[in-house]
């Protein structure tokens, strides 16, 4: 805990400007555990500042117009809300809804399908994805950081390296170090549950919390523990989103995808450019039959300000999301339930008041800083 607090206060002090200042509040991470910091990439103030600069660097795209921050915009709770799926270079549309960077430091794998094991590895891929930042390889990135005087100074200071000795490892370590400062708790729910402030939640949200824990079965994947609430089990589940669109083609398509993969097709490229491949979910990464159409459990923190929802952005409102689960993994109650549905998903028989309460609870998971962003919409 002291480590995380130190990092948070450090980053807030560093970045000063209004944007991240609210993290400086003593309880800004109420409800969150210490941020896991890899032993080989310790946090330093200079590294975090460098990472922030790299995160906003548009020269890392083929058009000079797209940075990490384009789809993970601090002014939009580090998403590109209200876009359904993200737009990269030349307004090219990908297949996935941009997940927020907020609290992503707690994930044990990155991307909706977990195809990157760490934040550092994650940062490598969008740069060279033809739909996102569109560079043919990482050489142009290295050219920028090895030749730009500001970067030369920063990399020298942070890593003691210059020229050829600066590699993508240092670049991604700095970006990840910055991203590990983007954590935020202290929502009304946190003040209610961990801060024991019974007035922090509305009666409706309190009732919704009960639905969340019991009849709604939400907490089994969106976990809450005694001293923390990450709202994710870091696992992958087929909840009937996306895969329902391709279920009639899977018998033919899934084996063909595996063959293409064995023949060397790039998974990162395929899942963002081919909508059918995208809906294979975790299966596209692991080739494991029981992961067909499954995606990572996203955190629910700040969910109310990051619409639309799900990996494909296919659900517009939290009410739609609740309906989808209430129907047992189908958005249209008359639709066919996909054959590979997770054993955790079943019809819930929630009443309309219970559904409304559950939405009120989800709306209580927004940190103070992002609540303002939600209100501004």
């Amino acid at each position, binding site marked *: 805990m002291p480590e995380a607090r130190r990092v948070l206060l450090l980053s807030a002090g560093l970045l000063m400007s209004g944007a991240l200042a609210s993290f400086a509040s003593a309880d800004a991470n109420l409800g969150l555990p210490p941020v896991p910091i890899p032993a080989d990439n310790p946090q330093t103030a200079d590294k975090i500042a460098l990472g922030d600069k790299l995160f906003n660097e548009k020269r890392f795209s083929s058009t000079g117009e797209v940075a990490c921050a384009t789809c993970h915009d601090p002014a939009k709770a580090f998403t590109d809300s209200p876009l359904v799926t993200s737009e990269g270079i030349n307004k090219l549309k990908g297949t996935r809804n941009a997940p927020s960077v907020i609290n992503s430091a707690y994930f044990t794998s990155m991307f909706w399908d977990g195809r990157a094991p760490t934040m550092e590895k994650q940062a490598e891929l969008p740069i060279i994805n033809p739909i996102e930042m569109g560079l043919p390889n990482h050489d142009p990135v290295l050219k920028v950081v090895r030749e730009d005087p500001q970067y030369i100074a920063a990399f020298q200071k942070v890593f003691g390296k210059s020229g050829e000795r600066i590699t993508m490892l240092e670049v991604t370590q700095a970006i990840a170090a910055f991203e590990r400062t983007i954590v935020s708790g202290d929502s009304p729910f946190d003040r209610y549950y961990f801060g024991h402030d019974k007035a922090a939640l509305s009666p409706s949200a309190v009732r919704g919390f009960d639905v969340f824990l019991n009849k709604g*079965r939400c907490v*089994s994947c969106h976990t809450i523990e005694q001293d923390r609430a990450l709202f994710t089990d870091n696992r992958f589940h087929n909840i009937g989103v996306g895969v329902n669109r391709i279920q009639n083609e899977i018998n033919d398509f899934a084996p063909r995808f595996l063959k293409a993969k*064995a023949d060397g097709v790039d998974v990162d490229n395929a899942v963002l450019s081919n909508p059918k491949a995208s809906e294979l979910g975790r299966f596209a990464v692991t*080739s494991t*039959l*029981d992961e067909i159409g499954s995606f990572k459990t996203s955190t629910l923190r700040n969910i109310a300000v990051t619409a639309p929802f799900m990996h494909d952005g296919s659900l517009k409102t939290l009410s739609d999301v609740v309906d989808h689960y209430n129907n047992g993994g189908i958005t249209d109650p008359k639709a066919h339930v996909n*054959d590979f549905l997770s*054993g*955790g998903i*079943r019809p819930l028989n929630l009443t309309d008041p219970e559904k409304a309460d559950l939405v009120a609870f989800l709306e209580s998971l927004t940190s103070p800083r992002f609540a303002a962003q939600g209100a501004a919409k």
Partner: protein
Amino acid sequence: MSRLRSDRRSFLKTATAAGVAGVLPLSLIELSFAKPADNFTFAYISDAHIQQIKGTSFVRNWDRGLIRAVAEANLLTPRPDFVIFGGDLAQLGSKPELDHGAELLSKLNSKLYCVMGEHDYYLDLGAYWSKLFGPQQYSFDHKGVHFVVLNSILTYDDWTFNRWPSAEQRMAEMAGLDNPNGSPFLVGQKQRDWLAKDLKKVSRNTPLVVLSHSPLQKIYKGWNFWTDDAEQVQALLAPFEKVTVLYGHVHQIQYNKIGAIAFTSAMATAWPWPYPQTYAQAESHLPKLTVQMNRADPFFERDATGWQFIDVHTGRSDVRYNLYNNKSRLVAYNEQTQQPEDVDYQSPERRTASQSHF
């Protein structure tokens, strides 16, 4: 798993190195064997327990288990040579249950062979099942292996014909566990005679695979993990050099060897045996609990269920268990120890300790 290996040894090594981490070597099987003609795969789905609630309403949980196993078996690449359904398609043997189960099985895109389970049998003594699926005991040859399917869930005539006032009660009594009114399973004299005759035409070095619903061995009588004339059936199989018995019924992974006969069980698609009372927010339709079992994750209805696909090579069978929310397991025949062994968890120190508290 990025490199395709061209011989079986390195395939197994690859699978082991990856910890059989839930990854089905879908495209690897085809390339795994030195003599492809001698080797083949089949899928084995068992114990679906399709259960009618009323009218067109069936227990959703059991439906989902069979639907998922069928859908996944259809994705195996290369396609398995055939699929075995290991018995207990229905819960109480009724026409609606058998019809509904048959419809779900009809989605399979491979040839299907069916085994009789006691839940399919004791309402009408297998009449409707036979109308749908054919004979209750039969044999066939496939790529040099002789397959025998037995109806191992018969019992003593007095119990079957004289004990019960109605067919429904007979079915219900046989469906219970720890039921003093139950009766041990039998292959029976008539079927043993048929088996002896069937095996006469098979040479001693032809690999045999015997499919039965109950274990053709005596494990636990109270739950009918038991066949009363198991020794007599084993005696008929004993002269053969390579015998594999695959059975359902037990809803858990078991493997052992008696003489030359290697036994391996199948998981159920419906529920694990035994299981704890868990997650009772909605009516569960689970049979009445007798003994608690650790269950990794009661939230997931598919947890501790699964299905299997089987590599047959040099006359021996390697059974790969596809287990939802859990790592796949591979019980392979070890030529050195001459035993079926769990590739990952055979040695005690490799096993995961049981959980004693949830």
